[in-house]
């Protein structure tokens, strides 16, 4: 578990303190994928670097497992850092070393000298990220996605319990992003690794994260399970991120429906509710009519979800809504 207790951070510039992160507390549970989303300058790079103390907090305490990171002296801190993998937006590989040597690097730093053991571990790691054929190439000969895979193999070398992802997919095209996220999800499942990732893309959060915190101007303005935050965003910044992830939803803001008759509703289905024909059944039973205005069916990580905006009319709308709620569908009344 990672715990931030009353942590804050400010930078000293020309004798003045510039706040970067407002005081906050935050827990990340073992084995979860925790996303931190924010615009550039919101403080997310600083936040993720607090975990392995690449940035020191100005106040507060940070725990990784039972270890208070903020209380460690340099050598003990270095030992702890070896248990925390990190990958970066620009990969940060050693350009003078081959792929295999890049992956072996953290093992060598940790004192592994046995060539056979190094080779075996490197082969295993490269196989996991699908780069076995590229062991003897140099980073400059690889594509962006391949470089990030090397970064991931390197980060996993010392069998960490935590993986920090610093905008790991921001420099990649959408297809490569998808495959790298897939790999991260796989690692999280199979190695039971806790992953903390920062991003400015809600889509990244939707695809791999279990929980998310939204960072705005150095403050955590919203946090919770991804499905909750995604389906019912509260803070304006969160809404903006969610709308970016759902372009058709953004277009469906209420103005175009001003003259549609009936009550305007947003129905959210998650998990099993997505799989039952509740809407059809209820409208048949209550005789209400609906007009479908916008909608989307997708997955939040492994959870199927649907969100429909519709206008409903008829004498028994309230009964219909009650029946739908009964079936596990969340309903929001939209006011125009």
């Amino acid at each position, binding site marked *: 578990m990672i715990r931030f207790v009353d942590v804050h951070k400010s930078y000293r510039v020309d004798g003045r303190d510039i706040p970067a992160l407002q005081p906050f507390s935050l827990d990340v549970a073992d084995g979860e994928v925790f996303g931190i989303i924010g615009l550039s300058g919101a403080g997310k790079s600083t936040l993720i670097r607090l975990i392995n103390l*690449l940035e020191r907090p100005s106040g507060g305490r940070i725990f990784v497992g039972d270890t208070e990171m903020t209380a460690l002296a340099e050598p003990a801190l270095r030992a702890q850092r070896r248990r925390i993998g*990190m990958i*970066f937006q620009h990969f*940060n590989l*050693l350009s*003078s070393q081959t792929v295999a040597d890049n992956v072996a690097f*953290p093992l060598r*730093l940790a004192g592994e000298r046995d060539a056979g053991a190094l080779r075996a571990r490197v082969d295993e790691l490269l196989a996991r990220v699908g780069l076995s054929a590229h062991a003897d190439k*140099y980073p400059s000969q690889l594509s962006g996605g391949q470089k990030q895979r090397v970064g991931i193999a390197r980060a996993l070398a010392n069998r960490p319990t935590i993986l920090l992802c610093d905008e790991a997919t921001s420099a990649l095209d959408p297809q490569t992003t998808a495959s790298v996220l897939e790999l991260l999800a796989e690692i999280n499942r199979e190695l039971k690794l806790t992953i903390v990732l920062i991003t400015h893309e809600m889509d990244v959060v939707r695809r791999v994260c279990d929980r998310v915190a939204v960072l705005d101007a150095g403050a955590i303005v919203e946090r919770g399970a991804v499905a909750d935050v995604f389906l019912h965003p509260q803070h304006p910044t969160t809404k903006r991120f969610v709308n970016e992830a759902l372009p058709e939803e953004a277009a469906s803001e209420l103005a175009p429906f001003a003259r549609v008759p009936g009550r305007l509703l947003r129905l959210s289905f998650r998990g099993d509710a997505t799989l039952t024909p509740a809407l059809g059944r209820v409208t048949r039973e209550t005789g209400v009519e609906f007009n479908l205005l916008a909608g989307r069916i997708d997955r939040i990580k492994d959870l199927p979800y649907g969100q429909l905006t519709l206008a409903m009319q008829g004498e028994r709308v309230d009964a219909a809504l009650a029946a739908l709620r009964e079936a596990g569908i969340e309903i929001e009344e939209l006011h125009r």
Partner: protein
Amino acid sequence: MNPLQKLFPNIDDWGEIGRACIDTLLMLGGSLALTVLIGLPLGVLLYLTGKGQLRPMPKLYAVTSLLVNILRSVPFIILMIVLMPVTYALVGTKLGIRGAIPPLVIGAAPFFARLVETALREVQQGVIEASQAMGASLWQIVRHVLLPEARSGLLAGITVTAIALVGYTAMGGAIGSGGLGDLAYRYGYLSYKSDYMLVTVLLLIALVQALQMIGDRIVARYKRR
């Protein structure tokens, strides 16, 4: 008569030119090795203690930097003369190859140290951060990240320094250090034997060309970006 004698009739002792060549190469080799040995750690120190770097120490940086600048701003021929007592104390003579090496090294090491500092600053900050995240110690970062990543820049710096040293060794001739510069000065300038001057200059040009070519090849070989 062989063609060289036909071309330069006034040169009566080619053996002396050969010996001067060997002297120049010995001075160059010896001083270059010592320059790298001293300049490299000095450059690393400048880099590490610089503002915003891994171990910022403003005072130490300021002092080192000032010392380096002082040594670099004194013209080499003056530096040689000023350093004569130091040279004598170090190697027991002010003359010959031995006498030339201390001022050559003291003149070139600060120059090389600056080139090292510049080359190290070219190393991507992200790579250093990544190795810190992997738990690397300062020494491990210097040894396994900074120096290998800056390798092509460092090799280019060694090439530039070697060429500067060729010029310095030639100047050394004026105060009796031997080598091609000494030959050109004594015969070409003091005795008006311009053939000697011409041959010496041609040999120096060939030497510099060769150094540059070898240096460029090695740099290209190690360039991975």
